[in-house]
């Protein structure tokens, strides 16, 4: 089979990326600007032997998707701000139960019902939204093509690390239409299966060096004990066993953090000799690139670091850049959520300045270019 070129919107590319990556289950609840993902998958999934269900609410959606993943299907749910707030309970629960899952957040303005304009206001929620501070993975697409590619990547990371992966799209990239090439097939990752006999299987036996326990097929002789309690490797509650609890909480974080090199996806543009670096992500990365080109034309040595992985954070790369740049500019559609993280990594080695827009309008190349001029 050959690939095909198609004109599609970001939300559609997410849906097609999910199917290409092997997602066969979607549970969701209607919300603007994410509903197209559900609508498209309600058509597409049953065509490919998959299941779509519209649940009674967002809590039901995230938990049905988790149940389906345990059932053996790669699972997805999608929503936007208010829905994501509700899903936090289920996201944290999937994290401690170590259930692979992808959650797409087509960001809109908040807090509250806010509006349905583009926003990047959920960046910190993606990191710290669920109680207990679970270490998740979050990716951010800046184009329709990246909606496809990063959805595939999100599914693969979820299966590889048995963790909920968030895809932080927004109303702009989600509704934007672009021509993209859909490859005939993509590289997929299947969850690790146990190599021991059923009698010696323990649900959370994470002896492998990667810290990820194999996941057994449910409904077989391998008894699986998925639990959201602090637990022993058997899945039995650890209650007040301090040592076991400590090891568990650290392993859940480290199975992600020890694989930063594999997970952190970045793209540099004109960085080699850059004295002023724009760190941008999601739909803001595109005007940022245009602004860098405009600056170069004017002789300003600007460069762009595009973060495609937001969490875990590209700490080391920012650290390196901060050693040789005069300043870092972080344009974002929030009041400086990622700028704070960049500042922390820069550790005072260079100035970190923001460019923030929270009126629901997109940040323009001209705005970033003007700010670059001021900062430089």
């Amino acid at each position, binding site marked *: 089979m050959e690939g095909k070129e198609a004109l599609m919107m970001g939300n559609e590319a997410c849906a097609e990326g999910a199917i290409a990556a092997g997602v*066969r*289950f979607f*549970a969701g609840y209607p919300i603007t600007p994410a509903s197209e993902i559900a609508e498209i998958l309600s*058509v597409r999934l*049953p*065509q490919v*032997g*998959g*299941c779509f*269900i519209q*649940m*009674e*609410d967002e*809590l*039901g*959606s995230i*938990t*049905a*998707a*988790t*149940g*389906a*993943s*345990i*059932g*053996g*299907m790669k*699972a997805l749910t999608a929503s936007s701000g208010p829905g994501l707030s509700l899903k936090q*309970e*289920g996201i944290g*629960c999937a994290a401690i*139960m170590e259930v692979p899952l992808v959650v797409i957040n087509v960001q809109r303005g908040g807090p509250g019902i806010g509006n349905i304009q583009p926003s990047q206001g959920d960046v910190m929620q993606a990191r710290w939204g669920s109680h207990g501070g679970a270490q998740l993975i979050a990716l951010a697409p800046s184009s329709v093509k990246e909606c496809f590619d990063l959805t595939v990547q999100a599914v693969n990371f979820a299966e590889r690390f048995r963790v909920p992966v968030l895809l932080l799209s927004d109303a702009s990239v989600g509704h934007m239409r672009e021509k993209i090439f859909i490859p005939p097939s993509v590289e997929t990752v299947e969850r690790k299966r146990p190599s021991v006999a059923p009698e010696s299987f323990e649900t959370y036996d994470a002896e492998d060096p990667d810290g990820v326990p194999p996941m057994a097929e*449910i*409904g*077989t*002789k*391998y*008894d*699986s*004990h*998925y*639990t*959201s*309690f602090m637990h022993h490797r*058997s899945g*039995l*509650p650890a209650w007040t066993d301090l040592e076991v609890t400590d090891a568990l909480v650290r392993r859940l974080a480290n199975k992600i953090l020890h694989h930063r090199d594999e997970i952190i996806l970045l793209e540099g543009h004109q960085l080699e000799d850059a004295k002023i670096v724009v760190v941008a992500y999601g739909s803001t990365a595109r005007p940022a690139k245009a602004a860098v080109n405009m600056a170069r034309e004017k002789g300003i040595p600007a460069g762009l670091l595009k973060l495609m992985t937001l969490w875990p954070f590209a700490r080391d790369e920012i650290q390196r850049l901060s050693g040789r740049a005069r300043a870092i500019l972080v344009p974002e559609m929030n009041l400086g959520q990622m700028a704070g993280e960049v500042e922390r990594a820069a550790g005072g080695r260079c100035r970190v300045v923001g460019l923030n827009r929270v009126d629901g309008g997109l940040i323009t190349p001209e705005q970033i270019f003007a700010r670059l001029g001021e900062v430089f």
Partner: protein
Amino acid sequence: MPEFLSPAVLLEKYYRSKSLPTSWCPGCGIGTVVGGIVRAILGTGIPPERFVFVTGIGCYGGAGTYLRFSDIHALHGRCPSYGTGLKLANPSVYPILLMGDGDASAIGGNHLIHAARRNIDLTAVVLNNHTYGMTGGQYSPTTPGGTPASTAPYGMVENSFDLCRLMQAAGASFVARTTVYHVTQMIGLITRAIRHKGFSFVEVESQCPTYFGRSGKIGTAVDMLKWQRDHSVPVEKAGELSPEELKGKIVTGVFIEEKRPEYVDAYYALMDRLRESAETPK
């Protein structure tokens, strides 16, 4: 009715010895209900590994911890939605949902009614002890009016749910009620519920001697079991009694057992149809 296994054999084969003793108070009804479910499962003849306990949070939700069955012990109130995803993705498994009255009808009420509406093939065994036992005896949606609770110090002011009527109205195709005292009936009803294709709901009136027995002034565990015996009315007889006579009674038996289209079957039939034809969206 299959051979009645002794508790010793049951414990050895189907409980995780490492996790015992249970955290349940002496005289609690949960152990009897869980034992009844295990016996019901064995009575169906379906391989035990095909069952998945999907349990809520609360004293009853801990049951999966003690059993040698696969289980998902996830969130308060969400058993029906975890079960829905699990069953839809993997129709070969039999999810058994364990929820207390608060879990099922307060925090999880929305999922419960919608699972019933879809008539998805799940079996819910709701243990109704009219209180939140684990957190200290707060009132639940099934606490009777006037009864004190740790959050109803002057007596319960709210109305309470009749869970079986709620489930019938929502669309469950098998609805039954029994008590811990009527353990043989309980095993039989749960067996029927598992075999029934569609959403099956069994409410078990249970005793919490630690909280509801005291606050409701019923007494010890034994008093509570006698109370269950003396206040139960089979559904067949309930029709002959006036609403006044039925006040404070537990109506037991099968309220509804109907063959109706089941959700997972319907969805997979759609998939098959799409595989065989070039049907496009309407």
